[in-house]
């Protein structure tokens, strides 16, 4: 019983932290994009205001049970990924709460990461909105694009370190140095892959607002949209922590964690701020081009080092 309470407490506390940091990052991103466009931009806490306003909406409509529970799929995936990723090094970050990072490994996380998008996609499918379905089609196609370099990079890291668990990777890095430098090609591949993963420009055609009316979420409003945005904030943070754990040996305190994740997050954000938009097949071909090339080099490097 106490274990379960500890787990639930850990889940709640991690979720809260992830939400706060993730939503703040979202606000910062809006600010950064605004600054690159020579605007002032919204205050940093704008995402909190948006999300809480959406939760306070009085009414909500749905087109059926799948749309109704679609956001629940998304939040399940985000929080589960977060639960299985060590947020801070050395056994969790609040001594009295538990994380589940010894119970899963990288392959599991790769699969868990797509759980949410597939569940959401089912919810979106039920709305019957053609724009939303077009967005789903584009998003899923693009997912096949970025998943390949993403997996190539992770596989080469796993082969190089002879472990598939994140805690194992972090122990390896404590002894041998950051994988960012020890597996440089894998890191380059990952940087290229996360350009696609975070759905910023030039890979944002799935959500193109003025072309397909924001695509997937176009029928979601009120609490549904709020839950999607919450889940998105948590998921962005979870992915960043995962990447920091894999390539930068995690972080031992919150300040370092924020610094590292923010640095990594700036790669897709800044690239996106100055980029136009790829069409879906162009995006897929781009992601299967140079990123896969670097990924194969990374794999060969990891085998023969």
């Amino acid at each position, binding site marked *: 019983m106490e274990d379960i309470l500890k787990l639930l407490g850990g889940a709640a506390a991690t979720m809260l932290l992830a939400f706060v940091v993730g939503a703040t990052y979202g606000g910062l991103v809006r600010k950064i994009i605004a600054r690159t*466009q020579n*605007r002032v931009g919204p205050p940093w806490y704008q995402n909190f205001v948006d999300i809480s306003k959406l939760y306070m*909406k009085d009414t909500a409509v749905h087109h059926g049970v799948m749309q109704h529970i679609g956001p629940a799929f998304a939040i399940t995936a985000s929080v589960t990924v977060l639960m299985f990723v060590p947020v801070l090094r050395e056994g969790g970050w609040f001594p009295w709460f538990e994380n589940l990072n010894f119970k899963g490994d990288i392959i599991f996380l790769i699969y868990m990461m797509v759980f949410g998008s597939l569940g959401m996609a089912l919810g979106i499918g039920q709305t019957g909105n053609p724009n939303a379905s077009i967005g789903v089609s584009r998003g899923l196609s693009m997912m096949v694009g970025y998943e390949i370099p993403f997996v190539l990079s992770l596989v080469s890291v796993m082969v190089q370190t002879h472990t598939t668990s994140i805690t194992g990777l972090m122990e390896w890095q404590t002894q041998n140095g950051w994988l960012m430098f020890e597996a440089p090609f894998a890191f380059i591949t990952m940087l290229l892959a996360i350009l696609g993963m975070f759905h910023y420009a030039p890979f944002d055609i799935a959500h193109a607002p003025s072309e397909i009316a924001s695509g997937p979420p176009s029928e979601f409003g009120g609490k549904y949209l709020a839950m999607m945005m919450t889940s998105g904030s948590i998921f962005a943070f979870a992915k960043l922590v995962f990447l920091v754990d894999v390539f930068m040996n995690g972080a031992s305190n919150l300040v370092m964690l924020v610094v590292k994740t923010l640095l990594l997050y700036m790669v897709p954000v800044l690239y996106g701020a100055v980029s136009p938009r790829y069409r879906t097949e162009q995006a897929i071909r781009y992601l299967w081009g140079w990123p896969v090339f670097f990924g194969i080099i990374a794999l060969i490097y990891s085998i023969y080092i």
Partner: protein
Amino acid sequence: MDTNDKGVRKIVDMITGFARSNSLFMLAYGTGCGDIEIPPAMTSRYDWERFGYRKMATPRQADVLLISGYLATKTLKRVIRSYEQMQEPKYVVAFGSCTINGGMYWDSYNTIKMLDHYIPVDVYINGCMPRPEAVMSGLFDLQEQIKKGEANGAQKYRENLEWYRGNQKKVIKNWVMPEYNW
């Protein structure tokens, strides 16, 4: 916690008012000439995102409906549909003299003259056309109203639905609209 307690109520209202007024998701219904005033208000010259305004793509996500100009009766039908698809609380901001009294279209056979006979308007912005400064000043007024809890057009619409429907059906001849979704 007793939500009916006066003090608690006040705090809750303050928080809701703050969140609702500082995060206005706009659905710009660009009719007539007014839509051209919205891009300058959005982009670097005036940058309305610094006040938490944001343009959304669909009525489901939006809070504010911007009607930016005259409305032909055909367009009115779409406006009503979009308005009814929005989630409450929802607000309407109407631009220009065309929406107030018909403006230069006052004797046109196929445009409506007073928008608030058809949907409840929270803020009118005067001018032909209003400049972005005027648009934003109107939105500030809307924010003030929301904070005070006075921007309750949706409630008005619900209470006087029959009157609004009567007016709408008077000008829209081929009325094939689904019933209102609350």
